[in-house]
């Protein structure tokens, strides 16, 4: 087997432990046996090429998927996808989904008494450019109640799914908004042990990109795993 670069394992405290009792759904779903170390081989060092062919023109503007405009505060969410070495992750699919302005998801299992918005699905997709940049226009999602504990409410968030270049870089996360008073009450946000890592899930208000009299902007950079070996060599295929 030729020498291929491997992806660095994240520092301890970056990812939430699968067993997080405060988030009750983990109880019966986290593996109890130790994970077995899988040295990264060709299958883990490669990944699907999922590009523009999957996209519709309105996929990155969640406010224009119907004839009418959704309720709520219009926002721009943009940023870059980088690897842990600071290199842009170019031409890579990003998928997002979210609740509407009132905190309601368009999903059969979400039935709390907040109305659906006829003009909002809460689904977006885009592909990063050559510099790893992406942009969505959407509506600021509302917080919503859930059944984890008495009077539990999730802080407002947008779900993000990223592929990177390799199976080993696959990531699903959530983007939060600055200074949300619900952070301290949320076992999912707080499941990330390292405080600096938690802050990396929080977007920043971006006045530069804010469109006057149109939409506030938030910047959210996503960092996927970097290479353990410094010089990147061609993966044979």
């Amino acid at each position, binding site marked *: 087997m030729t020498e291929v670069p491997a992806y660095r394992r*994240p*520092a301890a405290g970056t990812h939430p432990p699968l067993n997080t009792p405060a988030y009750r759904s*983990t109880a019966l779903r986290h593996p109890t046996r130790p994970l077995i170390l899988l040295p990264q081989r*060709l299958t883990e060092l490669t990944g699907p*090429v999922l590009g523009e062919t999957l996209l519709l023109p309105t996929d990155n503007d969640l406010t224009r998927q119907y004839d009418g405009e959704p309720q709520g505060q219009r926002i721009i969410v943009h940023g870059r996808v980088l690897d*842990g070495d600071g290199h842009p992750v170019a031409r890579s699919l990003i998928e997002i989904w979210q609740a509407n302005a009132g905190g309601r998801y368009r999903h059969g299992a979400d039935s709390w008494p907040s109305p659906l918005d006829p003009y909002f699905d809460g689904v977006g997709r885009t592909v990063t450019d050559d510099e790893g940049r992406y942009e969505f226009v959407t509506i600021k999602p509302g917080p919503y109640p859930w059944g984890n504990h008495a009077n539990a409410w999730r802080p407002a968030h947008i779900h993000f799914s990223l592929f990177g270049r390799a*199976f080993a870089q696959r*990531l699903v996360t959530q983007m939060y908004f600055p200074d949300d008073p619900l952070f301290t009450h949320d076992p999912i946000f707080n499941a990330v042990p390292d405080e600096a890592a938690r802050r990396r899930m929080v977007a920043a208000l971006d006045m530069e990109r804010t469109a006057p009299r149109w939409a506030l902007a938030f910047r959210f950079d996503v*960092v996927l795993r970097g290479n353990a070996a410094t010089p990147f060599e061609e993966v044979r295929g």
Partner: protein
Amino acid sequence: MRLGETPSQTVGPYLTIGLAWDEGAYVVPEDTAGAVWISGTVYDGAGDTVSDALIETWQGPDVHWTRGVPGGGFAGFGRCPTDGGGRYRILTRLPEPVDGQAPHLDVSVFARGLLDRVVTRVYFPDHELANGGDPVLASVSDERRRTLLARQTPDGYAFDIRLQGADETVFFDV
């Protein structure tokens, strides 16, 4: 430059809004020669089926799909949310042995209650010789190795995933 990674978070119960694709289960089109269904059920630690999970499969480079997305397939990538009974299914063709490894698929499992994906591999019982020389299977104890082997079915293979419990599936730290 070194940057800290963005943490993983759960897909939550409403994952299908963003992650379900109409043709996601079709790694290859239905009429592809040698296509097989890989299907199974996801169980939790109480033995209950998990109806809000997502299975993704990835098979490494293959001359048939590394350089594009032929026939409307998804470049070796399959994706299927579990249904009300915890079931998923993926239509694909078995990969070739690669790098001294037996034919296998990498599998990611996402679900409400999983704060990070868990990763496993599917191997195929009719490749006994190749399986015997596979370095990843060799790294797993005899007793647990069978959790990585699919069963043959009339239209392909069955591969159940047990997140927890006595027959817990082997999950890997990638």
